[in-house]
């Protein structure tokens, strides 16, 4: 039972961790090499990793997808430990629209123009993005912002994640307090009164059973069970 509990908790932690890692913004230090547009045919299993059609457009089974090709500084430990080596990284550039994930991004074209301008020079840039690059399913992280930086050794503080997790802690503590209050004031009194009623019924049954078994015992022989 204990092992099962631990397993469920670890699984829940992994699922939520992966979910937040996908959805929360991350920052990469990159050199943008080019921008391009490819036609994309979505499949059933990679469709959910793409946004809907551009805000104001119609959703079609096939559409063009803006990509930003970069040379990215590699990191260890989810970006916390920088490394000297670089590797290629490709970002998609799509509107997230009004629903999910809640970045409310409508400026893909502007972002693409900005990326193209940066690609002309030889500047380092910080790309803010969410999502994963999964090569075997042709899934790209979605770039949501880009700014140029003087050197690749910039310190980036993930304010959005800090604020988000702070808020999450407060919200969870609040929900816990609400639940405890609800249980103390509403559920427990209900259970108590129900418990009392059950006790009454059980007492009644026991009394009747006692009468019946005493009557039955009068029909038994001399070796009748001793009455308690």
């Amino acid at each position, binding site marked *: 039972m204990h092992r099962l509990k631990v397993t469920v908790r670890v699984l829940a932690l992994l699922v939520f961790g992966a979910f937040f890692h996908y959805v929360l913004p991350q920052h990469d230090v990159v050199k943008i090499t080019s921008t391009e547009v490819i036609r994309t045919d979505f499949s059933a299993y990679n469709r959910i990793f793409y946004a809907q059609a551009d805000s104001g457009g119609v959703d079609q089974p096939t559409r063009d997808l803006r990509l930003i090709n970069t040379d990215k500084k590699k990191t260890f430990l989810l970006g916390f430990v920088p490394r000297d080596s670089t590797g290629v990284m490709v970002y998609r550039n799509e509107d997230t629209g009004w629903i999910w994930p809640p970045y*409310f991004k409508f400026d893909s074209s502007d972002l693409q123009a900005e990326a193209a301008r940066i690609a002309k020079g030889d500047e380092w840039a910080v790309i803010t993005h969410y999502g994963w690059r999964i090569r075997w399913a042709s899934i790209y992280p979605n770039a949501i912002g880009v700014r140029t930086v003087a050197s690749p050794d910039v310190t980036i503080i993930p304010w959005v994640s800090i604020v988000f997790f702070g808020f999450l802690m407060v919200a969870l503590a609040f929900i816990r307090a609400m639940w405890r209050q609800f249980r103390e004031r509403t559920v427990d009194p209900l259970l108590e009164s129900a418990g009392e009623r059950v006790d009454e019924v059980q007492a009644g049954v026991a009394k009747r059973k006692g009468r019946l078994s005493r009557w039955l015992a009068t029909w038994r022989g001399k070796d009748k069970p001793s009455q308690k």
Partner: protein
Amino acid sequence: MGFIKLVVFGFIGLSIIYVSIAVYSKSVRRERLEDEFDANPPEGADAAARDTYIAEGMAAYHRSLRPKLIGLVYVVPLIVVSVIVYVINTN
């Protein structure tokens, strides 16, 4: 239309949160009034006096600023969404 969906479902979701917080806040206040009365009951107080005390306390609570502040549940997300829209979509 994504925007309409956001407004409709956002309103429903925030309403659930609003009602939960309003009920919780009322419950906490009522419990505090009960505890206050029980800790220091006036001479010869009966159950009716206790009920009056709590009813008066709850009426004062409904007149106070606190239940109105729960309306921020609707205001704050609106501001947050507006700020995100502005920050993300300006260069």
